[in-house]
């Protein structure tokens, strides 16, 4: 009886339309361009960027922090929603978890792009120095990558088995391997749900640790406006914030492209919109606290960075960030009438742009206003840096598209379970949230 229902989910996996091919070609061209640019950067050195003393970090590190932030989309959100039994999460968890796993590669990738000697990157493992926050990052991110990959894979197994039974040829072999003998016996179901439950809880502290240590890369130094004790929670909040925005953006696109209107309903966007509203307020609270303390104390070094951000060279970026991360999303999301699919999409795109700018205005202004009276300059990324950034976004989109052609982007078996859950009192998700 579930068969006709899942057809709209399965059919896009097994067919490739002309529009998909056109997009894949276009994105592939961007990735190929970026690959050539990277070869040029490897040959010429980081002189190909516009970095210099004292602005040693720029676009690549901004992207690193941004991508790692977006990675909180999936695993963390879906794990929290799973634990609190928010039943409406069912069609969106898979989409979110894929973002996490894929985007982590680009987070780490941007650090590699930023290395003067990427050929020696392995030295970090061969000669580790554990007092360096970068080492903490490497430990934390690799654990997160493993956990979130397992957490993506486990709920995929029953769906892979469905595909295995419906396909032939190379796809059958592929799914047969990945389904690791799933026949859907009660014992298997019991084991699977137990494993998912354990992973859902285990992945939360790992996810929190990841963005905390990313912030510590900055906060552990004594540089003005980096050396801040609230950076850990501030970055975690920003990460969840940009993560939810990324999920909503992906949901709208997938819904439109694959015609999944029956599964991704306005209620999903409304609920995620409320979650996003909460994060908007939290983000504003942290941003306000961070800047008020710097301004009120009037410590000259902190103040020079503060002034550059609020009134100086970085003011256009800073105030765009405030508009994109607070004014626009708050106005849209606080009103139930504008908390529609289009409304949440506009808010999410604004937040994605705003959070990227936030990362930039954390990394660059502090470095542009050093304590030492050395010559400083105005940093604007070079064409090489922009090209590699475009390549990262294109490659991410391409991999995400590729995933939708191999695996169901909506969890089939979890949808099958949904009616049973809906039989429970309608207010159940809300009360569970409150209890939690």
């Amino acid at each position, binding site marked *: 009886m579930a068969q006709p229902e899942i057809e709209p989910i399965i059919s896009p996996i097994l067919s490739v339309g002309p529009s998909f091919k056109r997009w894949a070609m276009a994105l592939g061209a961007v990735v190929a361009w970026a690959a050539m640019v990277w070869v040029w950067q490897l040959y010429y050195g980081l002189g190909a960027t516009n970095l210099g003393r004292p602005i040693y970090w720029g676009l690549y590190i901004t992207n690193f922090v941004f991508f790692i932030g977006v990675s909180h989309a999936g695993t963390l959100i879906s794990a929290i929603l799973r634990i609190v039994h928010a039943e409406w999460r069912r069609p969106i968890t898979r989409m979110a978890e894929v973002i996490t796993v894929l985007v982590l590669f680009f987070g780490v990738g941007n650090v590699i792009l930023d*290395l003067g000697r990427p050929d020696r990157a392995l030295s970090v493992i061969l*000669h580790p120095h554990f007092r360096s926050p970068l080492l903490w990052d490497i430990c934390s991110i690799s654990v997160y990558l493993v956990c979130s990959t397992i957490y993506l894979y486990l709920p995929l197994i029953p769906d892979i088995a469905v595909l295995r039974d419906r396909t032939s040829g190379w796809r059958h072999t592929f799914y047969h391997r990945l389904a690791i003998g799933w026949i859907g016996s009660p014992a298997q179901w019991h084991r699977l749900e137990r494993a998912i439950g354990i992973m859902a809880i285990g992945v939360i502290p790992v996810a929190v640790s990841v963005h905390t240590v990313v912030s510590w890369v900055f906060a552990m130094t004594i540089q003005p406006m980096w050396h801040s004790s609230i950076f850990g929670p501030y970055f975690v909040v920003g990460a969840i914030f940009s993560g939810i925005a990324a999920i909503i953006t992906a949901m709208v696109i997938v819904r439109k492209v694959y015609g999944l209107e029956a599964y991704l309903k306005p209620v999903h966007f409304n609920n995620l919109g409320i979650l996003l509203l909460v994060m908007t307020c939290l983000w504003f609270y942290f941003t306000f606290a961070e800047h008020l303390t710097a301004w009120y104390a009037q410590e000259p070094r902190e103040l020079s960075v503060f002034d550059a951000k609020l009134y100086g060279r970085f003011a256009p970026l800073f105030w765009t960030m405030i508009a994109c991360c607070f004014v626009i999303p708050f106005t849209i999301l606080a009103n139930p009438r504008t908390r529609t699919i289009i409304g949440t999409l506009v808010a999410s795109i604004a937040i994605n742009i705003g959070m990227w700018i936030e990362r930039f205005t954390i990394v660059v202004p502090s470095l542009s206003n050093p304590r030492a*009276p050395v010559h400083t300059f105005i940093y604007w990324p070079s064409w090489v840096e922009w090209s590699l950034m475009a390549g990262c976004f294109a490659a991410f989109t391409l991999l995400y598209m590729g995933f939708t052609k191999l695996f169901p982007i909506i969890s089939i078996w979890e949808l099958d379970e949904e009616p049973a859950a809906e039989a429970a009192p309608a207010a159940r998700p809300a009360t569970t949230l409150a209890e939690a």
Partner: protein
Amino acid sequence: MARWGLVIDLDRCTACQACVVACKHENNVPFSTPETSARGRLMTWIQLVGVEMPGGTTAMMPMMCQQCDRPPCTDVCPTSATYLNPEGIVAQIYPRCIGCRYCTNACPYAVKLFNWTAPEWPESMAPMRNPDVSIRPMGVVEKCTFCHHRLQQAREEARAAGRALAAEDYVPACVQTCPSDAMMFGDLDDPHSQVAGLAASTRAFRWMEDLGTRPKVVYLREGE
């Protein structure tokens, strides 16, 4: 073991920049042009900068790696490519450096330099490079080492002569060159040394010492 330190008397310093030139020659510091300098890529291990003094005056200070006893740069290095050696010199292992530039960002003095491109010299200058100092490859961080190669040489010469290393055997190029004798070098742990005496004088201050970095470059205030 010695704890090497440098004292710079700002009353004697004429800001002639002979130390800057001597350092560039001694340590094979790559050539820079005004264009590269404007982009923040000036390669120089010593530089004269105007530092605001208490009382509102500006002093021209030769600025180089402050050889901190508690260096903020060494803690953050993910590969131990930069570390505090037993004689108090903040060392930099070029073949281990991955070029992440975390140390350059952690240093409050902004004295660590990155090789953005492969080093270059005009053809006429290339043969004048110092064979005792390795040329840094593209993509690694470098900085003042207190002419560490001179310490190694002095130690070998002392061993060959069958005597212990004396503090006078080892002098960095900037100190040797200074025409007004504004720079003094020696063992800060030896209470009888000139540098230890000067470092204890009332004129002595360390740059940004309120940060707790405990530099071993000591400046003597001018105008007293």
